[in-house]
């Protein structure tokens, strides 16, 4: 794509951003702004879709009908969130098929955290509480992103997401107040999901490849480290409330900063999982590919049915 810009297009674009107004699909925008958004929004969409897999693993084994109905509704929401986001990306001129191809070929990234396995029922609680909790912190910030369709999708998603975190917290709260074995199960889930949740916010600001440009264009409104800190602060209080211990000996309230201090993140692990060597990377992509291939007959049938309806309608009219 070449920038075929009217003479004052760039300054108009910059003025719009500076005035805290939104950029809308038909507006002129720099190619890099467009590409940056396509990358971020499609990655976000892929994460919603792949994020269904670890939790889907427990739908048939939920401990009660109530929990099962809730988990089913939550996973259904994730599919919906994927759709909102793919649609927002499509307003930038990229097709759904291209995005899906990039996901299925392994070219596109999705949130690394979904490459960890869900070993016990408590993991469903930990995902809702921590993973959705981290996602909400990020997404609330993105409600103020400069691209209109993305911002509007975020508002809708945030409204729906709140129940996801609460149902997860409720599972953890119930387990933590249960038998010794149940509490141990909840603690084990927290131990395994805590650090990957902190990694969800991405590299430290100094090392983040896209942060500076994204902040300048107001695609991102707060930096990775700011958002991570916010998540740690709120989650530390929540964990203490239900009597679970965050697996970080350096986690400590810092009076002078007004924030919790926390220990160093293992970025080697982050990079390993990102590079495809997490416990479930291959299984996740294989499951997505199989789902896509298994769904082909449904897509074909939808088209065939519509063709038939059309043929009947024209036949009746003739």
């Amino acid at each position, binding site marked *: 794509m070449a920038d075929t810009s009217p003479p004052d297009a760039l300054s108009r674009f910059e003025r719009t951003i500076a005035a805290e107004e*939104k950029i809308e699909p038909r507006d002129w925008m720099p190619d890099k702004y467009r590409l940056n958004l396509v990358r971020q929004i499609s990655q976000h969409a892929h994460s919603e879709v792949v994020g269904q897999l670890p939790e889907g693993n427990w739908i048939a084994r939920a401990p009660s009908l109530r929990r099962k109905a809730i988990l089913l509704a939550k996973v259904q929401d994730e599919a919906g969130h994927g759709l909102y986001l793919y649609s927002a990306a499509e307003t930038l001129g990229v097709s759904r098929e291209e995005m899906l191809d990039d996901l299925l070929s392994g070219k596109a990234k999705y949130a690394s955290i979904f490459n960890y396995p869900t070993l016990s029922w408590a993991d469903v609680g930990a995902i809702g509480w921590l993973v959705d909790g981290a996602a909400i912190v990020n997404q609330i910030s993105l409600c103020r992103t400069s691209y209109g369709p993305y*911002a*509007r999708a975020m508002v809708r998603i945030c409204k729906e997401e*709140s129940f996801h975190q609460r149902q997860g*917290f409720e599972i953890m709260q119930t387990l933590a107040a249960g038998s010794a074995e149940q509490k141990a199960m909840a603690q084990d889930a927290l131990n395994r999901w805590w650090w990957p949740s902190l990694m969800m916010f991405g590299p430290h600001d100094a090392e983040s490849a896209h942060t500076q440009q994204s902040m300048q264009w107001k695609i991102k409104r707060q930096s990775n480290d700011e958002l991570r800190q916010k998540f740690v602060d709120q989650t530390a209080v929540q964990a203490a409330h239900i009597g679970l211990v965050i697996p970080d000996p350096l986690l400590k309230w810092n009076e002078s900063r007004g924030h919790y201090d926390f220990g160093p993140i293992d970025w080697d692990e982050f990079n390993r999982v990102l590079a495809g060597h997490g416990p479930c990377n291959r299984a996740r992509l294989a499951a997505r590919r199989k789902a896509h291939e298994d769904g082909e007959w449904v897509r074909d049938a939808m088209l065939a049915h519509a063709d038939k309806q059309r043929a009947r309608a024209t036949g009746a009219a003739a």
Partner: protein
Amino acid sequence: MSSKHLPLWEVFIRSRRGLDHKHIGSLHAADAAQAMQSARDTYTRRQEGVSIWVVRSSDIHASQFEDDSAFFDPAADKVYRHPTFYDVPEELKL
């Protein structure tokens, strides 16, 4: 006198950047360009909008009123989709 009718168009206005287009009304016009000009003159005389969509009314498919209760029924008994279903302490900011 021509016996042809001008087709009906639905008009959607974005009142300012960042907001969705909202349906505001309809008008008759022979093509999209005319509909656009008419929409501007009819619905944005007081700067009500920064962007207009016009869509042929015949291109809009609507759910049927008679089917409403059955159509929307699946959502009626799923209170657990709402955050207020869960009892969590206010101060935890969940």
